[in-house]
């Protein structure tokens, strides 16, 4: 899923300080799972904003809504009837949702309420870690199912750097070295000889280096 983290309230307050009506718009998907932008977080942020405005002696209406998804046009339509009532929308969806909301309502100021971080997993409640950088040409088949592009601090494709120490990365003794993980797993799979296959120079055109990407599926376009 896409993992996001809460933005400091002060930053959000600063974005909407001139509005007299604000809609806090949550999303029921990834940001709900990572507890950054679901219904619960919408309620918490809305009441914090109400309090802050009250303390500043401002009368501001702060409403709450949470859509099924903000990355699908049909759900964004659900706020069409009320959208023009607000001076500002704070979207707690990932950056994708924020942009799609802004695109759908060109005249409505839409602000990001979370920091969108990465594609990752829930390791345990309150702990999310990165697993993929969406490079568009997956190499997990050659790396025992562990991604060195997202998990090695130098995205090395051919093995650990000289800084790998006791299974940890040179940049942080808390962080597993991706290549240690890959080697351990190759060992477990009895596939160590795979390590010595040279990974060729990568074609990054399917990564962000190739510009904004798209997936076209004519078979489902009807």
């Amino acid at each position, binding site marked *: 899923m896409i993992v996001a983290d809460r933005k400091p309230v002060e930053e959000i307050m600063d974005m909407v300080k001139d509005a007299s009506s604000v809609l806090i718009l949550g999303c029921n998907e990834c940001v709900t799972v990572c507890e950054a932008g679901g219904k619960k977080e919408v309620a918490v942020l809305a009441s914090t904003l109400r309090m802050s405005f009250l303390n500043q002696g401002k009368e501001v209406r702060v409403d709450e809504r949470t859509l099924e998804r903000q990355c699908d046009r049909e759900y964004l339509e659900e706020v069409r009837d009320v959208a023009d009532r607000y001076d500002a929308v704070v979207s707690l969806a990932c950056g994708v949702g924020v942009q799609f909301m802004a695109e759908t309502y060109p005249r409505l100021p839409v602000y990001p309420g979370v920091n969108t971080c990465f594609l990752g997993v829930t390791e345990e409640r309150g702990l999310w870690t990165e697993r993929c950088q969406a490079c568009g040409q997956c190499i997990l088949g050659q790396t025992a199912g562990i991604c060195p592009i997202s998990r090695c601090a130098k995205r090395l494709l*051919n*093995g*650990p750097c000289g800084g790998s120490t006791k299974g940890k990365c040179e940049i942080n003794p808390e962080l597993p070295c991706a290549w240690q993980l890959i080697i351990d797993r190759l060992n477990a799979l009895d596939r160590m000889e795979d390590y010595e296959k*040279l990974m060729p120079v990568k074609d990054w055109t399917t990564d962000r280096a190739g510009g904004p990407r798209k997936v076209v599926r004519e078979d489902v376009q009807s």
Partner: protein
Amino acid sequence: MSTKTPSTLEKVLNAGHLAVTSECGPPRGSDPEVIKKKAEMIRDHVDAINITDNQTSVTRMCSLAACIQLKLMGVEPVLQMVTRDRNRIALQSDILGAASFDIHNILCLSGDHQSFGDCSQGQNVHDLDSMQLIQTVRHMRDEGKFLGGDELKRPPQMFVGAAANPFADPFEIRVPRLAKKVAAGVEFIQTQCIFNLEKFEEWMKGVRDRGLDEKVHILAGITPFKSAGMARFMQKRVPGMDIPDHVVKRMSDTPKDKQAAEGITIAVESIQQLKECKGVHGFHVMAIEWEEKVPEIVERSGLHPRPAV
């Protein structure tokens, strides 16, 4: 191993001599005298001098320009090149720039992570990794082509090196990793500083068992301690460094005013022991801002005078 480039370092190695290289860090400014002064101190005691490329990710005068300064002095440079800061366009372009000044040695590295340096908030590039950079230089030199396939005029004549750290983890991958660099086309290796001689010999045994010492020249990395404090710091704080407790103890048991001399003695003893290690073809003395001691280390190790080739 047959000689393929005009590199003096390559000639020394292929003639069967124990090679000696050292390195100089360029200044954090634009004064060329800094690099010239360091090079002057050691030029008669080494076959080639590496110029580090923004080591520990701290911004410095570029390695290429500092290598040109050496070249103008008639000293043989080894251009260090990290993949951290440049994409494949910039790397190839710098290789051609270096070749235009007849710089004949290159050391291909991935580089320390930028979080250690003065630009910790910067991007890193890592378009290629060190193995792929080795392949790139070999491709440019041997095929006379750019990575993209186009013909290039006057291919670089570079002796291609890389680093190996026998002490990083996982240990089991350390010999296969060297094999991989050899397959990528590396011709000489400079190792991480060696303090744990037993572990190094164990690695070298693995290297010999696979016949890799016949395919690549290995220069053992030597660093003299200036003080017990430096030994402790390196033991605790530098990732990928293996310094046994008894070495740190030997330094701290030495009175303060004699520690520097003891550090040099340890370095000399290490070289003497490693000379006996089959597969070690030379030494890379990294005297981190202590260049004035390199001549003493080289002389006391019986590696002076340098052979004329």
